[in-house]
């Protein structure tokens, strides 16, 4: 029976809500019982329903819900792994105690011959000791092989069990009935069975250790989260484990403490170091109404905040989950290995049978001894695990490394594609530039002044969320300008907006001066194309615009009742590191294109500042994806870098879509890669890490293919006709044990990856 799931329930104001939530939960298929604790705002649900379904049911009933997770999952996992690791080492030691003395004494001639009664007794005793080793140290191979056999599966256990089992069976038969085989074939292979089991256990232990390091990135992310939080319940402050923080609970954060979950500041103020999310080294000011993010570090002040997202819904939990998911995905390059490993073990069994028959029919004397050694060596040397691990283990380390650089890779294919890019297309606003434009020039026509111009522009932009609109609103607010009442608001995509003034007090520049009688009229605010489509004469403004654009200022024309009233020019400063980042992209041989809806002159001015190769300007939002297609039609492999919302179609169209995030919006669906730190350096880092990861996968795949392709024929005796060389099964066991470890260790090299001078 599964443990009951616990949910935190938000929005319950009265005891009546308890019944509503319980009813909603009990209606979910698979739920056998549901109890809501009103005091704790939690629910305990028994049955087989998934947490996702339960949360959805509570939300559908009008409440908030999130799963409360048990504490210490990671610690428990590590403890269990440590127990298993020690067990493997114990098994290695026991097998080694029996195998190593035999291995040393044999070649020195210290062991009795099988042909004497004393020798026979000695070897039977050794056989019994080896049987104990096989049961204690190798029992799991035999059990696994047996169980796999009955479900028509063959795996590594099958190979080890058959190899060592054949060695022991032959040896014990020879020890019991030496005269059954020719004198030359009277040899026991107990040491081989024991040493092979010791080596394979040792290999598993080493691999386990190395594997622990592959998930360091995730552990570091999990480590960002504090273990406890200080909640205020019934007016009292209590430290509780973070898993027990409920939705809408009030939490206190003191100086130097980490913020436990996501929420909104309700009292107090402070500065918070959000560098783990944004890469921004300067602490950010927080006061009532501001959002705070779990895992970030409170610096100077104390404040209270209300939890809005807990458990697996926090931004940090989303990042961890996304990294986990990506670590589990696999690029196309690994699929051949998957296909081979699915038929590998039965294939090796058939090769082993053929090897036995060939040696038995045409091998030298003693044929049975040679046939057995060669067959056993084939079974032991074959390593399907290295083949199966080659790709996923490198992906795990590579994706984790990327996360350390603030790069979230959504799927393995993106890694492979990122290394093949020939062109990167950068959206201008918010990607190359800061995306926080400010009003830099106001050019009023005769009869108008700058205040009026700004007031009308601000009025029409008041409802818009466009970055340019924010700049106008900020400028108006800084000058204390109020907005007018408008009606008939209409956005004209890629061109601007239209509306009609219906009321409000018009402000003028000269304080106390008479307001012009312009309280109504049709307003148009937008680019030159908008003005031309309404047949508005731009007059002398055409010349002025060129000068503005040359300074990378974007002009917005304002027309009132079909007559131009002036220009509001907005400039979006280039991010300080854009030029360096683009130089890095050039250095890797990539062509850099800038795509923008701005006019060509403004775009060229930005392009000159940062050094891009090509500018595609005056592109409507809907046409961005088409521009990517045109580049792809020219044979380019295109990476698109944009903000993830306006650029979603272009990001999806590109071979690799990179969304520049702003810290918390990590789940950008349209992008293959999310750069949470908002810097273009992330693109160069992502491409660098991708190339290193794909190179690492290729090394692993090449190594494991070559290992098996060469190892199996050599084990079968391919070198014997020419050099009289037949591989010792113990060496085969050692090679097999090291092959998986080598693959994991090679993947671990990615942990030392450094992106040029940059550090995560």
């Amino acid at each position, binding site marked *: 029976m599964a443990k009951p799931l616990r949910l935190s329930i938000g929005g319950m104001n009265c005891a009546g809500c308890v019944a509503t939530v319980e009813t909603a939960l009990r209606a979910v298929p698979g739920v056998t019982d549901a109890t809501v604790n009103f005091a704790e705002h939690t629910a305990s649900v028994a049955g087989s329903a998934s947490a996702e379904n339960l949360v959805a049911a509570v939300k559908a009933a009008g409440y908030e819900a999130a799963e409360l997770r048990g504490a210490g999952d990671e610690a428990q996992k590590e403890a269990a*792994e440590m127990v298993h690791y020690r067990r493997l080492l114990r098994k290695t030691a026991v097998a080694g105690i029996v195998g190593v003395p035999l291995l040393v004494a044999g070649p020195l001639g210290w062991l009795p011959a099988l042909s004497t009664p004393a020798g026979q007794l000695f070897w039977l005793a050794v056989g019994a000791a080896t049987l104990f080793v096989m049961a204690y140290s190798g029992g799991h191979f035999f059990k696994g092989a047996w169980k796999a056999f009955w479900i028509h599966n063959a795996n590594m256990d099958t190979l080890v069990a058959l190899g060592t089992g054949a060695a022991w069976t032959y040896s014990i038969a020879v020890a019991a009935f030496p005269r059954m085989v020719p004198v030359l074939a009277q040899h026991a292979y107990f040491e081989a069975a024991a040493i092979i089991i010791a080596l394979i256990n040792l290999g598993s232990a080493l691999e386990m250790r190395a594997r622990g390091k592959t998930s360091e990135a995730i552990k570091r992310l999990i480590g960002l989260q504090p273990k406890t939080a200080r909640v205020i319940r019934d007016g009292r402050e209590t430290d509780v484990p973070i898993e027990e923080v409920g939705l809408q609970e009030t939490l206190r954060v003191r100086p130097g403490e980490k913020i436990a979950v996501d929420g909104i500041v309700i009292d107090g103020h402070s500065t918070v170091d959000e560098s783990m999310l944004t890469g921004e080294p300067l602490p950010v000011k927080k006061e009532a109404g501001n959002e705070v993010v779990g895992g970030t570090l409170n610096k100077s002040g104390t404040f209270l905040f209300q939890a809005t997202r807990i458990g697996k819904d926090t931004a940090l939990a989303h990042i961890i989950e996304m990294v986990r998911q990506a670590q589990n995905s696999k690029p196309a390059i690994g699929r051949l290995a998957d296909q081979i490993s699915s038929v590998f073990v039965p294939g090796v069994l058939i090769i082993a049978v053929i090897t036995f028959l060939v040696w038995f029919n045409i091998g030298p004397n003693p044929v049975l001894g040679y046939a057995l050694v060669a067959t056993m060596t084939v079974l032991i040397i074959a390593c399907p695990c290295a083949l199966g691990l080659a790709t996923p283990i490198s992906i795990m380390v590579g994706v984790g490394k990327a996360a350390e650089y603030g790069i979230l890779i959504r799927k393995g294919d993106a890694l492979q594609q990122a290394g093949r890019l020939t062109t990167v297309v950068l959206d201008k606003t918010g990607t190359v530039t800061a995306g926080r434009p400010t009003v830099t020039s106001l050019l009023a026509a005769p009869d108008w002044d700058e205040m009026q111009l700004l007031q009308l522009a601000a009025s029409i932009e008041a409802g818009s969320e466009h970055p340019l609109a924010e700049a106008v609103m900020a400028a108006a607010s800084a000058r204390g300008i109020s907005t007018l009442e408008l009606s008939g608001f209409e956005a004209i995509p890629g061109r601007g907006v239209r509306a009609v003034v219906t009321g409000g007090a018009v402000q003028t520049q000269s304080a106390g001066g008479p307001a012009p009688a312009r309280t109504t009229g049709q307003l148009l605010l937008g680019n030159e194309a908008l003005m031309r489509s309404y047949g508005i004469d731009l007059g002398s403004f055409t010349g002025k615009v060129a000068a503005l654009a040359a300074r990378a200022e974007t002009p917005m024309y304002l027309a009132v009742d079909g007559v131009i009233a002036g220009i509001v020019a907005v400039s979006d400063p280039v991010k300080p590191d854009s030029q360096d980042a683009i130089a890095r992209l050039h250095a890797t041989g990539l062509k850099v294109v800038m795509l923008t809806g701005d006019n060509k002159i403004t775009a060229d001015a930005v392009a000159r500042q940062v050094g891009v190769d090509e500018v595609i300007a005056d592109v409507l939002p809907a046409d961005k994806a088409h521009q990517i297609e045109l580049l792809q039609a020219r044979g380019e492999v295109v990476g698109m870098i944009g903000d993830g919302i306006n650029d979603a179609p272009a990001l999806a169209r590109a071979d690799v879509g990179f969304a520049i995030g702003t810290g918390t919006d990590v789940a950008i669906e349209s992008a293959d890669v999310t750069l949470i730190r908002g810097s273009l350096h992330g693109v160069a880092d992502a491409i660098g890490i991708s190339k290193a990861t794909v190179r690492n996968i290729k090394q692993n795949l090449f190594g494991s293919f070559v290992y098996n392709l060469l190892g199996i024929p050599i084990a079968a005796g391919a070198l014997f006709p020419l050099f009289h060389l037949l591989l010792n099964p113990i060496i085969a066991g050692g090679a097999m044990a090291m092959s998986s470890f080598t693959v994991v260790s090679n993947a671990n090299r990615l942990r030392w990856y450094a992106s040029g001078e940059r550090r995560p």
Partner: protein
Amino acid sequence: MNALAVDSVGVVVAGLIVWWFWLSKPDAQRAREGAPIDILVADGVYTPARIEVPAGRPLTLRFTRKDPSPCAEKVVFEGLNITRDLPLDKPLDVVIVPDHPGEYTFTCQMKMYRGTLVVRSGQ
């Protein structure tokens, strides 16, 4: 020893390997309406390893991992794009809605643990 007899045995064994591991399949466990299917992850095998389900209906596979080795840690559903980390000694539900009939393998990362989800149409 009679070489012909040994060769014959060898050929038969090779044939049996082909038949048992590639051509023949274990009995499938059929999913019961609405009930989760418990899958034990231990000793190198998923038990049951072959599960038959109707297409288009949500299915809960409840994995309980008893094998502490890292090999058993992940379950990967190749054709369904699902990968989950399996906690030790705790059940983990994987909810799947298999829309298209066909055979979907689920494996560990190394492909040593193997299972098959047989999705049948018209049930």
